[in-house]
């Protein structure tokens, strides 16, 4: 008798499990499908927004008087941003915050970008950028080698050993070193003296331009 009720219970439970699971699976897919497309749309939207912002910037540049009046209304914001300091010395004649407009095809963030050797070998990704106190960009830290995230090594390479594509997308950064040179380098460790793998130490010609693709 005890067993009978037990089986009944489990049978009901089984049916419920089945139902709950089916609902969950359907739910996940219903959520998944529109979300992926929504993501793509969202991305496009954000691109469009960026474009619009850029256009607006262009307009602002053409009408400096408007910007100046706006800035005078908000004197608290007059400190120029640190990143724009260099340009500011040339352009900051009035009270306004100077700004430089750069085409988004000419400048891009570098974190996470793929790095290849001149012979088109996979050299990993840029995971960090090392800057000296003087503001000079000294080295890029690349995450090199491994499989599925196992066995990779982070290595600092000289900034001047990097070549950026002169045209097309910025995703193909070229490192003027070979895998053989990089693999033996000591690992980059934050908080320890930096070993920067550079062009000076190896028999390479820094003048050699990167092959263009």
């Amino acid at each position, binding site marked *: 008798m005890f067993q009978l009720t037990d*089986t009944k219970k*489990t*049978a009901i*439970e*089984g049916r419920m*499990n*089945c139902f*709950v*699971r089916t609902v*969950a*699976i359907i739910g*996940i897919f219903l*959520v*998944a499908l529109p*979300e*992926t497309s929504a*993501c793509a749309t969202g991305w496009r939207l954000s691109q469009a927004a960026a474009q619009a912002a850029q256009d607006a910037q262009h307009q602002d540049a053409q009408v400096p008087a408007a910007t100046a009046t706006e800035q005078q209304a908000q004197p608290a914001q007059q400190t120029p941003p640190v990143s724009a300091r260099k340009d500011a010395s040339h352009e900051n004649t009035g009270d306004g915050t100077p700004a430089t407009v750069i085409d988004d095809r000419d400048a891009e*963030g570098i*974190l*996470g970008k793929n790095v290849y050797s001149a012979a088109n070998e996979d050299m990993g*990704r840029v*995971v*960090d950028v090392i800057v000296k106190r003087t503001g000079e960009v000294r080295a890029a830290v690349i*995450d*090199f*080698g*491994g*499989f*599925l*995230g*196992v*066995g*990779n*090594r*982070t290595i600092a390479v000289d900034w001047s050993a990097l070549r950026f594509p002169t045209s097309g997308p910025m995703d193909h950064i070229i490192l003027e070193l070979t*895998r*053989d040179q990089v*693999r*033996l380098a000591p690992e980059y*460790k934050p908080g320890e003296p930096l070993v920067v793998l550079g062009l000076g130490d190896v028999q390479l010609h820094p003048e050699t331009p990167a092959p263009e693709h």
Partner: protein
Amino acid sequence: MQLVALRRAPPSPSRNSLHGLDWFVFFLADAQVGFGPLIAVYLTAEKWTQGDIGLVLTIGGLVALIGQMPGGALVDAARSERVVAAFAVIALAASAFMFAAWPVFAVVLAAKVLHSAASCILGPAIGAISLGLVGHAALGDRFGRNARFASLGAGFAALGMGTIGYLVSNRAVFFVTVALCVPTLLALRMIRAGEVDAERAHGGRAAPHKGHPEEPLWSLAHNRPLMIFAGCLMLFHLANAAMLPLTASVVTMRSSDSAAPLVAACILVPQVVVAALAPWVGRQSVRLGRRPLLLLGFGALSVRGALLALVSSPYTLVAVQVLDGISATVLAVLVPLIIADVTRGTGHFNLAQGAVGSAVGIGASLSPMIAGYTTDQYGSAVAFFGLAALATIGFVSVLLLMPETGKGPSGPVTEVLRKGATS
């Protein structure tokens, strides 16, 4: 007591249920591969800073550590292990989807925590479903099978996801993981609910003992063999966890053109060995007892550490990974088996799995720190020797302290039960 159990409810799992469990273990191992070290690579590509990645992984690791015992207790308390497992698999799918869809800090942190929590439940749940399905007597063979299918799953997934990550994108790997949760749930569905005896799945008395209340939770702390075993396992993982990453790092450093395939081989060779050996280990665990096999596993780890320190050719390093396979096989089969042995009749099998899981987690998370520090200061050879020394301490601990849990007074009965269950 075992004889009472035999009379009352002889476990008679159907072929369907057994195959369902095979595939459940297979696809679950598949799905878990995507959550491994690949996460760091993926987030790097998504312009995450190393600090943020480290923070998310650390928090996830802590949740995985703290959640072990509550996860086990939850499985012990569950009326149906299948329902609990199903919810955990759905949580896994949701987590993978969150990773893929919104790689921003808050979402990724939530996804990582969700994944850790789900894993804390799924680990014990596999043991619980196995035990509930086949009973203590046939458990050695069952865990042998589980280990085979888990490593086949992990091996295929590592190959497949490595290829997808390389050819398509790392993000695609997470969508594949979401998709893999569907066959996982279907396989879980194949296991018949009526055949998973909840009482048995918790390592409890199969017969209701009136006037014998369940043993209190803290009785586990007085379970001497369990505590010794947890300590030995902590030492094992203290030695083991950093060994593969360190090996892979050395391979990357030594080999110029074929580093990635060699590292892949370092990962896959042990999986192949586990898949080949696990059923044999499962059988021998009944014939020879648990202790000799456990010593084999710890011994293989010490020898491996020593060899890795001495060997320099990357190809030989890959060959040494066969030893990794041997110790991985022994551990995969014997850890749940010995826990089931020592918690027999307590009703706290899964809580004990969680407790041992915590010990393993502590060992595994301290291991990279020790290895990393030693490598920085003295080089990788010394680090390998150090890890080998830790493994040797574990070996000696098993030799001196660990009792045989599979034989003894209940040995012959177990043998009879096993034959009855498999015929």
